[in-house]
Every structure is written in structure tokens, then in C-alpha cells.
């Protein structure tokens, strides 16, 4: 294990890890699932089943729509009862979605676990990952097989496994590391085979000391102490963001407008790596994930949920919402998206459902205290973006590197004047996008 590292910028958030001692429970299968065709970055899937088709769990229902895309599979067995359009909660656009009604059983497709997973070739690993439709499960949902195939000329020398989970309330990755640590490490070995990096770091925040100890013991048992190095990190938000993470561990900085690939680093989430294990060792496609349900519910839990399950099913299983709850958040309290519809389905990137109570915020004048500047992990000037956005001067926002903003929310959190800085930044970014696409 390496010495503890910490980041210079960022903020201290209240941790509220209510569910860190709750083991993962499988949620009973829902009656009906709604699966949108776009749950990842890149081209939406092409539907290959039609209304009335009977499908088995794990059967492919959507083909990857291009190179940067991921396949979709049926998450329950039953009949395709129709298609619908639902609003993508992140972009606000409508996407097609498939509705599958359950047949009451959980019939799986035929799976062929790999015969000799220790000696499988990289190309076979990539094919299995692609077939399983794996995307980044930390929230960004980038198709994993693309991330495992760095372009020509980019030499990857460091692989970082991201087990930080810096947002308050969320404990999905924490419980996964405690209960399925062995599978995660075997999946990490597969990624190591494909990318062949010089060093591999496992990044875990210090508020998960039991996970650190558990993984350290497993690594010793597997005999991989020389290859996998655990790096404990001082808990700070946003330590889990890949740019802050890789700078804290390696000291390198991703160039403006670039990717971690440009400095020879690839970062993967623990859930993604465990899904890679499932795809290769058990030929299981990506159909479920761990979701933390927390906040103002009567029994906060960590649940194993099939994609497409409506949120109402999770909340009912957790004892229902408390009386004073008035906010439904998909994700964590810092970067999550507030939603209004309890029938919205769980997607590949949904790591948490949070029920909160919030009072309306009253914005007052910026007093130029500079707390937003000190908090920003990307070393930007959030108060300037607010000033420019208020006067519609979006070009000035662009010149001030607004594209680098990761929308982590550290600035809004620290603002004593209650200015919703991230809202101004998102507005400015969407105006700049509109201008770019209009040209």
C-alpha cells in the first residue's frame, strides 16, 4: 500500500454514508421495464426486436449504433410490449425506449463462460466486452471497449481503478469492493492484459478503511502485491473525478481539451471492471448494477437492480419516502439531476437514488469573497462565469475556459451568497453549444 495522498483543491462535504454497512440486496424483478436506446455517450442503439417478440434475460435487443456506442440487452424475460419516448434526464431530449413486460420467470439466454479465462487473448476480451454492452458505470457511461482501445500512438503507462466514491450518501462501489472484491481484482487483471500498463493504482478514499484492508488482503492472497498498488486518498470532493484523481496520484495534468489518454493514463470505475469480469468469466451481459437508495427513505439500502426498473419500485422496497421529502435526485447531491417522475427507469449510469428535502434558494449579490475560486478543482474563476452569463457575454465565458468546467458543484456549495453558479455555467455552455451547432 502506498502513502496517503491528498488533493490541493476541492471541498469538504458532509459524508452521510447511511448505507455503508448495508449489504447489497437483490431487488425483486419488476413487472415491466422501460429501456431507453441511449444510455451511453455516443450513437443511440438500433432496435432489433419488435412488438410482440418474446425475449429472454440477457438477449440482445439493441445493436451498437456505431463505433462509439454500446449494445443493449433485455434485463428481464418476457415480451416486448411496445416502444415509447422518454426524456433523457441529462440532455432534456426525447429518446426511444423499449417496454418489456415480464413473464414472471427469469429465463436466461444460453451463456458460454470462457473456457480458460487466465489465458484469453486481448482481442477476445475486447469482443466479449463489446458483446456485453459495457459502459463506464461511474456515471459518465462511456462505451468501455472504446476506452480499452487507445488510438495509435498513445502509450498507456498507468491504469487507475477508481474506487473513490467521493459524493455523499453513495455507497454502491464501497459495498461492491467489500462483497465482490475478488471479482473486481480478476477483472482488473483482464484490463491489465488488454492495456499492458507499467503501473496499476487502486484509488480508495480513506473513509472506506474496511474496503482498503479487504482489498489489500485479497491482493496478497492473489500474489499481485507487486502489480496492484492501493493508494489511500484523503476524503475530499471531487476526488473521484478522473482529472483530480490522476493529478493527485501521478502529478500529471491533462492538457486543456484533452483526455487522460494524452498523458498516458486510463481510469476505470470498480463497477465497470466487475462487469468486465462478468462478461469474460461468465458471459453475462450488462443487465444490472448496484444502486444506493438513501436520504429521506424509511430504510436506506444498497440494491442490485436490473436496468429499466422504475424508481418507484426501489423506493417502495425501501419503505417509502418520509413525509417531508420533496426532491428526487438521480445520482449524488453534488452532481445528481433532480427529477419529477417516479416512473423513470434505472439506467446504466444510475448509481444512486436520493430523496431529499430542500427549501428554495434565495440568491443574493456576489460579494467577491473568492470561495468559489479556492474550491474549483480545475482552477477556474466561477464568479466570472456568473458575471458574464448575466450579461449574456458567452464569448467571454469561452475565452475563460468554461469548457473545462466539470460541473462538480464545489463552487455553488461554497458560495455564501447562495448563487446557483452551476446553473449559470450550464446555461452558458448550452448557449455556446447552440451557437456552435447553428454555424
Amino acid at each position: 500500500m502506498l502513502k496517503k495522498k491528498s488533493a490541493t483543491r476541492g471541498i469538504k462535504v458532509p459524508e452521510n454514508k447511511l448505507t455503508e454497512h448495508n449489504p447489497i440486496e437483490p431487488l425483486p424483478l419488476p413487472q415491466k421495464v422501460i429501456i431507453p436506446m441511449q444510455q451511453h455517450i455516443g450513437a443511440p442503439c438500433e432496435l432489433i426486436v419488435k412488438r410482440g417478440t418474446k425475449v429472454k434475460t440477457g438477449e440482445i435487443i439493441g445493436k451498437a449504433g456505431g463505433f462509439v456506442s454500446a449494445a443493449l440487452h433485455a434485463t428481464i424475460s418476457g415480451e416486448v410490449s411496445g416502444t415509447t419516448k422518454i426524456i433523457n434526464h441529462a440532455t432534456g431530449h426525447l429518446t426511444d425506449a423499449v417496454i418489456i413486460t415480464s413473464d414472471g420467470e427469469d429465463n436466461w439466454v444460453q451463456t458460454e463462460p470462457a473456457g480458460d479465462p487466465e489465458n484469453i487473448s486481448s482481442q477476445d476480451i475486447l469482443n466479449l466486452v463489446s458483446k456485453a454492452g459495457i459502459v463506464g458505470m461511474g456515471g459518465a457511461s462511456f462505451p468501455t471497449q472504446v476506452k480499452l482501445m487507445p488510438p495509435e500512438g498513445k502509450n498507456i503507462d498507468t491504469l487507475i481503478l477508481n474506487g473513490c466514491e467521493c459524493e455523499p450518501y453513495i455507497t454502491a462501489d464501497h459495498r461492491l469492493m467489500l462483497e465482490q472484491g475478488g471479482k473486481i481484482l480478476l477483472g482488473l487483471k483482464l484490463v491489465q492484459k488488454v492495456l499492458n500498463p507499467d503501473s496499476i493504482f487502486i484509488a480508495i478514499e480513506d473513509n472506506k478503511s474496511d474496503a482498503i484492508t479487504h482489498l489489500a488482503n485479497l491482493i496478497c492472497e492473489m500474489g499481485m502485491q507487486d502489480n496492484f498498488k492501493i493508494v489511500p486518498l484523503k476524503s475530499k470532493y471531487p476526488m473521484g473525478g478522473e482529472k483530480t484523481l490522476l493529478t493527485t496520484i501521478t502529478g500529471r495534468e491533462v492538457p486543456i481539451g484533452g483526455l487522460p489518454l494524452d498523458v498516458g493514463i486510463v481510469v476505470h470505475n470498480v463497477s465497470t471492471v466487475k462487469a468486465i469480469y462478468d462478461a469474460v468469466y461468465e458471459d453475462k451481459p450488462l443487465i444490472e448494477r448496484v444502486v444506493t437508495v438513501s436520504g429521506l427513505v424509511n430504510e436506506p439500502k444498497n440494491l442490485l437492480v436490473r436496468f429499466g426498473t422504475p424508481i418507484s419500485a426501489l423506493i417502495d422496497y425501501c419503505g417509502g419516502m418520509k413525509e417531508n421529502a420533496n426532491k428526487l435526485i438521480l445520482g449524488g447531491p453534488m452532481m445528481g439531476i433532480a427529477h419529477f417522475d417516479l416512473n423513470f427507469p434505472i439506467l446504466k449510469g444510475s448509481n444512486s437514488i436520493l430523496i431529499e428535502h430542500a427549501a428554495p434558494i434565495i440568491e443574493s449579490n456576489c460579494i467577491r469573497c473568492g470561495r468559489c475560486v479556492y474550491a474549483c478543482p480545475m482552477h477556474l474563476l466561477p464568479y466570472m462565469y456568473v458575471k458574464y452569463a448575466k450579461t449574456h457575454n458567452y464569448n467571454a465565458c469561452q475565452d475563460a475556459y468554461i469548457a473545462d468546467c466539470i460541473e462538480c458543484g464545489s463552487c455553488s456549495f461554497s458560495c455564501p451568497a447562495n448563487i446557483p453558479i452551476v446553473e449559470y455555467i450550464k446555461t452558458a455552455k448550452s448557449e455556446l453549444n447552440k451557437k456552435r451547432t447553428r454555424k
Partner: protein
Amino acid sequence: MTPEKNFMVSTSPHIWKGKSSRSIMNTVALTLILPAGASIYYFGIRAICIISAAILSSIVTEYAIKKLRGRKFVMDGSALVTGLLLALTLPPTLPIWMVVIGSVFAIAIVKEAFGGLGYNIFNPALGGRAFLSICFAREMSTWSLPTYFSLSTDAITTATPLAMDIADKTAMYKDLLIGNIGGSMGETCAILIIIGGIILISVNIITWHLPICYIGTVALFSFILGEDPVFSVLAGGLMLGAFFMATDYVTSPITNWGKVIFGVGAGIMTVVIRLFGGMPEGVCYSILFMNALTPLIDRYIKPTPYGFQKESAK
């Protein structure tokens, strides 16, 4: 079955730190009670009258102006702090009606006419004091020795220490530190101001950069130019100005390096005005001068964005 609910939808983040502008202003006001208490101890009834008059007229002026502009008036503590700071820069013999005029000018012209909280360029309390110095020069330069709650409101007038000749240095330093000398109301007890400043730094309301650089530059420059550095630092309104006036969020630079430049610039100006200018006190005008330069400092002193140097190397 979960009942139907109307959910509130707003952008992330959905939690806030909880520290508000008002709580910051209130903390500053609380630490200002230390020098204000010292001034009441030394100057008695007059101090109480001047402080109350300044605070009341600041708040009333802000209420009136906000109503005139059609804005909502919120007791966010900024008018309270402005009034209190203005009171602490005034001589204890100043007639109350002049104090009121100073407050009105500070709030109505220096703060609200420029746009209100967050938009003013100059420190309102210092702007009010500068206005009073120009309009009522004689009354503003009448300093008195401490009268210690004597019921007579007459005071023995004397010059401020900066315009005096000093015989016994150590006794003078001790008097300067605990405040047993004449001067404006807040200038007197340096120890309490330092304690107040340390409190503000320890709760992260101000950083150490501006006050330390300001005071350090004054000490260094006066030493280079042949003056006694300890005396230069302890006498006059430097302590109050460095810890409470110059560090005002709205009128000082945002980045730490910017604050250093502000402190050094104000320090040089203070020494120059004291030694070569016609006035005994340079703190007020040097801070106002650097306030004018703050937007320029903020324009050029910015943190390097993450990943920037790599771009120029590409």
C-alpha cells in the same frame, strides 16, 4: 404504493455549505466589538454616541435607498459593519450631525450609487471618512486624549501621536499597544485589533496575506526611510485598516497573489503619504487608492487553469 408527489426540480448541487453572507458580516461585526469596546472604555459616552449614530444612520440610509430603488431591504449586516468601521475611524470629539452625514455619504454614494453590495469599487467606510476629512477638516483633525467615562463631554485636545515628538520609546510602545494615547476611536488599542484579526483568520473569513503584507511593507519601508518601524506600525489607523478595512471582500483582489500586491502597494502609499505628504495619516487614502487598482489586479492575476501549461507546450 408511493403516493403522488410534486417534486422540486432544480440544478445541482442540491446541498449548500450553510455559511451565508449575513453570518460572515455578523462574525466581522462581533470581532469589531473588541476595538469598539476599547474605544468606549477610553472615550466613554462620546464613543457610545458616535458608534450608535453611525450604525443607525447607515442602516436607515440603506433602507431608504433600497426603497427608492425599488429593491428589497435585507438586514445582511453590511450596513452595520460599515457604520461601525466608520465610527472607529472618527475622532471622539466629532459632532454627531457630522457623523450622520458621513454615514449617509458612505452608504448612499460610495455603496449604493455604484450598484449596492458587491458592486462598489471603494470601501464605503473609508469613502465616508475621506469625505468628512475634506468637508470638515478642522473637526476631523482634533484629537483628544482618553477621557475614561468622565461625565464631562469636553476633552483635552492634542495632536495624534504621528504628529508628535517622542521622548521615551518603550513607554510609548506600551501606550500605543494598549491604547492609552490620543487618536481616532479605533486606532487606540492595537492588541485587541490584532486579536480580532487573528480570530478572523482562524475562522477563514480573511486570509493572512493582505494584513501581513500591508503591515510588513509599512514596517520595512519606514525602516528603510529612517523611521522607527514599530512606531509606524502601531500608531495611526494601520492596524484597523490592515485587518478590517483593506480585507473587505468586495473591494480587494480575489486571489492570494492579488492580495499580496494590494498589501504591498497600500504599504508603500501609506509610508509615502505619511512622510512626504501633508497629512499625518496615510492609511485611509492608500487603501482607497488600491481599491481603484483592484479590478486591474484581478484582470491580470488569475490562477492558471488546470492543464494550461501543457497547451502552450504542445
